[in-house]
């Protein structure tokens, strides 16, 4: 630990280099970390991504705007609905279409359910990274209820391409509202169990407190957004700062912690689940009557120009940038995915720690590898 660890990586020929991944269970996908070790201490980390690069941005160029939706599902699959929302809103703003209030409310409700489901799965996996297998079963048990709500209304559990430019593909199921109310009632009782199982556990606290400290300046300069950035006191919630859909109509708190360590990032996500439930409670009874989609032409042609929309996914800020030349397919699409920016701070915050702590720190960044590689 005597060396000064800087973000500028200086390679030496006598470094002891070892690969973590691409098939390592704690990288949550095909991500390879090139580690330089000194004993058990990590000197520097070089992330190598691109193993699951599918060229989604290029594929979007041959697809119509309705068809892009099924591709955006597949980069951050744990917040698939929110990705779709970004593209849909960008297209609607470009066409200056006013979507019905009902669509805005339903979109916000599904987005918040999606956020809870994503944080639950992260909680499962994070516990398992640190050696607590129990969390995996308890988290998945509760996530199942949300997936059932999705399956009943939209037919699929993880990737339900239900958003489309102009509104929704189908209306919600008649049981939708009642099921959400049941879920909130159930989850309010169960969420304190998460604290008893993992948060209060002394082994977990020792392994996460003060580990991988990210300063606010680092978070801003690396573009770390979402729960990771908010754990360092960086106020970056798009829902609050630039409200879209029905977020301007609901009352919720932006969770901010200032410690910037692994435990703070953990606490942000746990508190966000409470806030998401608050948003759901305010919206679920007030879904206005109306049409579930605005009237759209069968072939959408955007006017010539550049269009940008950002939304808050479960992992941070997602930006969609569409360049249109007036055809039915976009000229160029660029996605600013949150995990790509969040990943590259790992050398800064995890070098100097032990390998086991690197697993905890990379787990707390909530990496979804297809989101990095696209």
């Amino acid at each position, binding site marked *: 630990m005597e060396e000064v660890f800087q973000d500028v990586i200086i390679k030496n020929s006598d470094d002891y280099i070892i690969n973590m991944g691409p098939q390592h269970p704690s990288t949550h996908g095909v991500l390879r970390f090139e580690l330089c070790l000194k004993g058990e201490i990590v000197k520097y980390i070089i992330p190598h991504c691109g193993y699951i690069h599918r060229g989604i941005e290029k594929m979007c160029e041959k697809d119509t705007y309705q068809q892009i939706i099924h591709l955006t599902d597949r980069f951050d699959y744990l917040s698939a609905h929110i990705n779709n929302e970004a593209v849909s809103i960008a297209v609607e703003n470009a066409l200056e279409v006013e979507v019905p209030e009902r669509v805005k409310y339903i979109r916000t409700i599904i987005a918040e359910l999606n956020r809870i489901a994503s944080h639950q799965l992260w909680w499962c996996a994070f516990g398992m990274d640190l050696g607590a297998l129990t969390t995996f079963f308890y988290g998945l048990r509760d996530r199942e209820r949300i997936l059932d709500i999705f399956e009943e209304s939209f*037919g699929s559990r993880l990737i339900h*391409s239900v958003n489309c430019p102009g509104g929704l*593909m189908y209306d919600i199921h008649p049981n939708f509202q009642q099921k959400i109310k049941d879920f909130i009632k159930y989850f309010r009782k169960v969420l304190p169990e998460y604290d008893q199982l993992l948060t209060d556990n002394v082994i977990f*606290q020792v392994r996460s407190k003060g580990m991988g400290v990210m300063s606010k300046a680092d978070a801003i300069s690396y573009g770390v957004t979402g729960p990771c950035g908010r754990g360092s006191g960086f106020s970056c919630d798009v829902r609050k700062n630039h409200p879209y859909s029905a977020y301007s109509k609901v009352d919720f708190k932006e969770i901010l912690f200032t410690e910037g360590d692994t435990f703070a990032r953990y606490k942000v996500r746990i508190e966000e689940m409470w806030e998401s439930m608050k948003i759901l409670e305010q919206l679920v009874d007030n879904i206005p009557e109306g049409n579930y989609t605005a009237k759209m032409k069968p072939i959408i042609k955007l006017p010539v120009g550049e269009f940008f929309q950002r939304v808050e996914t479960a992992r941070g800020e997602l930006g969609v940038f569409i360049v249109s030349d007036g055809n039915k397919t976009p000229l160029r699409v660029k996605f600013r995915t949150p995990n790509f920016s969040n990943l590259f701070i790992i050398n800064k915050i995890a070098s100097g720690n032990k390998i086991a702590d690197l697993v905890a720190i990379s787990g707390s960044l909530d990496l979804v590898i297809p989101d990095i590689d696209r």
Partner: protein
Amino acid sequence: MNIFKYFGDIFGALKSLWGGMRVTGYYFVRPGKIVTQKYPENRKKLEMFERFKGEVIMIHDSNNQHTCTGCGICEINCPNGSIEIISNKITNAEGKSERIIDKHIYHLSMCTFCGLCIKTCPSKAIVWGQEFEHAVFDRQKLTKVLNHSDSSLKKETKKEIKEA
């Protein structure tokens, strides 16, 4: 090292472990709260939701008639080419040339279940099926022909589309 801190840490650790064990113990003595389903055993009772997206199927009525006119809108809308329509041109009894489908081919192996084909179908000929056990030993079996053999087009279909 402070001796009080040493013992304090030990008792604090025991307390936190007890907190976690209480939760797991609560569910251990209440087997009724277990939500796990035994999947292959409960196959006969298993019911999917009515909107479940299993696979694309074509509806046929009791006379082996469907409503697919072979217009090809599903083929155009499919983002990854999982639908192929092979149609024939025939002359009907009135002497007009007419297009009927020969084969409506559906590649399940390429389908991403986005639902654009079903949403855009003007005659509601294809719908979602409930089947979800798609595992087969041969990839060729995932290429399906949706229209039954010797099936024909329902007579009123084209009129209904025009009216709508």
